[in-house]
């Protein structure tokens, strides 16, 4: 008995300590980035561990004045929001059909969707570039929304499918007996019951869209360029200006960190939903 008590006391102490260590480890790069963003470029490249310095807003002012931060940010918001909305608009009916009226090939379709994520993006870079240019949609919001939606659709459908699976089929059938239309089933029963799951799917999809860099950098120039492009564009021929780069990066990840902070409960709940039941 004594041994059991001792181990549990040990784990009671060690777990928070471990959690803090891991947490700080993950947080440190972000912390350092924010810190660097307030340094002058000269301070930023100093080899010593510089924790105390004269902070400056120069990098941020420079960013908004010379780089048109707000245009990139607006583009990021527009493309991420619409891509998420469209992904849900396609994903909800799709997951609904597969969860409640599965056919013999439902499992294969799900696997196939996941397999599209295994294709290296670089393999289709040139076809995509030429295709979008000749279609005249290169560097448009439409293209970026479409691309972001499509690359996130598999994960959106998979997540929604898992949540919908948790809803007893009887409830859907009761709805059918009660005279609801298919749209009514989705609107009156499915969405209210799976609301938590849909919200966390939307949140995750939005975060993925916001952070996406491969396609948003390569398929835009100015018009539809997002914050990823802004960061990428801060490579100057004379080398990297760490202060400036940090400010841009901090401003790019800032909104999503704030969003994640406020929604962390939903996110954790969403990601572990169904795992323990």
């Amino acid at each position, binding site marked *: 008995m004594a041994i059991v008590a001792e181990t549990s006391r040990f784990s009671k102490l060690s777990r928070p300590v471990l959690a803090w260590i891991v947490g700080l480890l993950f947080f440190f790069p972000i912390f350092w980035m924010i810190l660097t963003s307030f340094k002058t470029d000269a301070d930023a490249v100093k080899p010593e561990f510089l924790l105390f310095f004269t902070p400056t807003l120069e990098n941020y002012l420079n960013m908004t004045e010379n780089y048109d931060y707000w245009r990139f940010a607006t583009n990021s918001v527009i493309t991420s929001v619409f891509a998420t909305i469209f992904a849900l608009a396609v994903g909800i009916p799709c997951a609904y059909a597969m969860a409640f009226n599965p056919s013999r090939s439902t499992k294969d379709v799900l696997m196939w969707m996941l397999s599209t994520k295994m294709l290296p993006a670089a393999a289709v870079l040139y076809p995509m570039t030429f295709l979008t240019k000749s279609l005249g949609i290169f560097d448009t919001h439409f293209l970026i929304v479409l691309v972001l939606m499509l690359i996130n659709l598999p994960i959106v459908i998979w997540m929604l499918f898992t949540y919908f699976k948790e809803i*007893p089929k*009887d*409830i859907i*059938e*009761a*709805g*059918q*007996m*009660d*005279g*609801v*239309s298919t749209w*009514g089933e989705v609107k*009156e*029963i499915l969405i*209210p*019951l799976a609301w938590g799951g849909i919200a966390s799917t939307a949140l995750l999809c939005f975060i993925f869209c916001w952070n996406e860099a491969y396609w948003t950098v390569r398929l835009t120039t100015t018009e539809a360029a997002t914050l990823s492009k802004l960061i990428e564009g801060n490579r100057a021929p004379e080398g990297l200006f760490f202060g400036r780069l940090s400010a841009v990066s901090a401003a790019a990840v800032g909104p999503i960190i704030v969003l994640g902070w406020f929604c962390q409960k939903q996110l954790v709940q969403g990601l572990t939903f169904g795992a323990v039941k």
Partner: protein
Amino acid sequence: MGRIVLENVTKSFGDAQVIPPLNLTIEDGEFAVFVGPSGCGKSTLLRLIAGLEETTSGQILIDGEDATQVPPSKRGLAMVFQSYALYPHMTVRKNIAFPLRMAKMDQAEIDKKVEGAAKILNLADYLEQKPGQLSGGQRQRVAIGRAIVREPAAFLFDEPLSNLDAALRVGMRLEISELHNRLATTMIYVTHDQVEAMTMANKIVVLRAGHIEQVGSPLDLYRTPRNLFVAGFIGSPKMNFIEGAEAEKHGAKTIGIRPEHITVSADTGPWEGTVGVSEHLGSDTFFHIHNSGLAETITVRADGEVGFKHGDRVRLAPREDVIHRFDAEGLRIA
């Protein structure tokens, strides 16, 4: 109105035929019970009538109209599920009102009907609660309430009481019977419990492997089971089956005698055996008799006052007029 006719209905899942061609008529106002062991196709049959499963072939007529291709929502039937299938995000009031709201009924009318149903089912105090706050019996009443407000052509019950504890089950059984008397609407009720079937039905449909073994009133089935399966399934405790010389004496391959039709005593009767386990119910005692030379165990239902002990030698006297005779195929010999 609610006359339901099944004509040559079949159902297959892939290559497996779960309902072979089946014909059945349920008259308007009847309380029909589908009963059979698990996996006999009784729930599938109910779901075919509801429209939740598509028939592979054959026709389903509701009040003379072909409903085979009609979606469940348009068949005018209401269903009560084993799991209650209430909408957990809605209050009791909204649950009951849901089918009416879907039918775009006037709000004042909806309120009136919901209040009416709540009164019949003793739910008036719970209207603003969510299903999660209710007991099993109350939830089942909400499910029934949701069904009755629609004034359906027929009610379909899919093992509605099997999630309730024994005492509640008896109470709800009476409530559903009472409801049937009051509404006089067709009800089709699926159960594996022959006691529910016997106590509630006007018409019992005994199913085995998708086949209808017999259709009839509870007492028809009890008195004149068409074959060994029905004889063994209806009645509790189960009918005793005796083969061999004793059966041949009656001109049959197998004879059946119900436990309540055998008298046990110390000295009278043609059969003899040793008392094994006795189950005392108070009003009755079930004796399981071994070593009779007739069957492994013969069950006898005796008055609760009869007091034989384990190991006692007893004599058994069957009532000759109620011995059931079956031929080599297991069919009843008239």
